[in-house]
């Protein structure tokens, strides 16, 4: 693992093993950031400006230990992207409590813990960017996605209130709500169901990774210092 020189900007991306998290990690490592990433399994890719932590974002002790290591290694954190997330597609009457709990633990508690520890690392430098992940499933009230959408509704509420609470230290907190993007997250959704979902979008197609980084670039830009507490949906939702 490389230690970046102290002036290099440091970003944390959760859920960086695959999917959107892997894309964003590589995207920012290619653009001068040092990226620390995490997921429950080892990363399936590598980059000289990337190092991987293996942990569950819903495990408070593990999250605190990761941030202690980031502090020791880099002494700073400029941005945190709360991308780790899991989904389930099922009717409420067919959803076990254990599944609902797992969704909330990763999506909601995970986002809370990572944002809390990230903000603590950002306080000394009085600046920072936190980007959370919501989904269009929440505003569209999609049937079959109750627990997933509810866990992301909670992420939106956390985003708005953390934006207020963290503003004295110039830490912005925003969220992106992507439309369906072709990753493992949606591979289990039957094709006819996906077609019907896309039909409900103003912009009737899948989203792309580049559309996600376009939004994260906007939130991360120095000029976005007064953009906070915002939820930006893709696909015209």
């Amino acid at each position, binding site marked *: 693992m490389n230690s970046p020189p102290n002036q290099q900007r440091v970003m944390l991306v959760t859920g960086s093993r695959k999917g959107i998290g892997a894309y964003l990690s590589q995207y920012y490592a290619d653009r001068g950031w040092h990226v620390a990433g995490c997921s429950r399994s080892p990363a399936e890719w590598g980059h000289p400006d990337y190092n991987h932590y293996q942990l569950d974002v819903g495990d408070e002790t593990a999250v*605190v*230990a990761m*941030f*202690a290591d980031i*502090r*020791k290694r880099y002494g700073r954190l400029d941005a945190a992207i709360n991308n780790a997330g899991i989904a389930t597609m099922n009717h409420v009457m067919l959803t076990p409590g254990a599944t609902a709990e797992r969704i909330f633990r990763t999506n909601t508690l995970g986002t809370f813990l990572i944002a809390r520890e990230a903000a*603590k*690392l950002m*306080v*000394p430098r009085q600046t920072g960017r936190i980007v959370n992940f919501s989904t269009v499933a929440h505003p569209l009230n999609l049937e079959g996605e109750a627990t997933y959408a509810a866990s992301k509704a909670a992420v939106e509420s956390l985003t708005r209130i953390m934006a207020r609470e963290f503003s*004295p*230290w110039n830490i912005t907190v925003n969220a992106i709500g992507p439309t369906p993007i072709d990753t493992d997250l949606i591979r289990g959704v039957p094709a006819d169901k996906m077609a019907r979902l896309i039909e409900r979008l103003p912009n009737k197609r899948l989203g792309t990774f580049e559309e996600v980084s376009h939004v994260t670039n906007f939130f991360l830009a120095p000029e976005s210092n007064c953009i906070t507490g915002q939820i930006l949906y893709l696909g015209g939702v």
Partner: protein
Amino acid sequence: MLELIVKSVQDILNLTDKKLAEGITADTPLVGAGRVVDSIGLVTLIVDVENRVAEHTNRPISLMDDRAMSQTRSPFRTVGTLAEYVQELIHADLKERS
């Protein structure tokens, strides 16, 4: 420990240009009447103390654990009670590890 907390309070006051008539001592209040930091200042202080202790001991500590929340008398009353409380947490952590 008292020294570490005094230094932290001083640094936070320096950020706000607030001048104290007398210096910071163990009796300096952090909450309630005569407090030297506002609520945001207190959050900054707690985070700063956590950061400094972690640097010092190489162990992450959290000042806001269930114990702090459940104490009838807040450990954040004064610079002195905060110093005692942090010392207690470090001892408890050492004990747990041994």
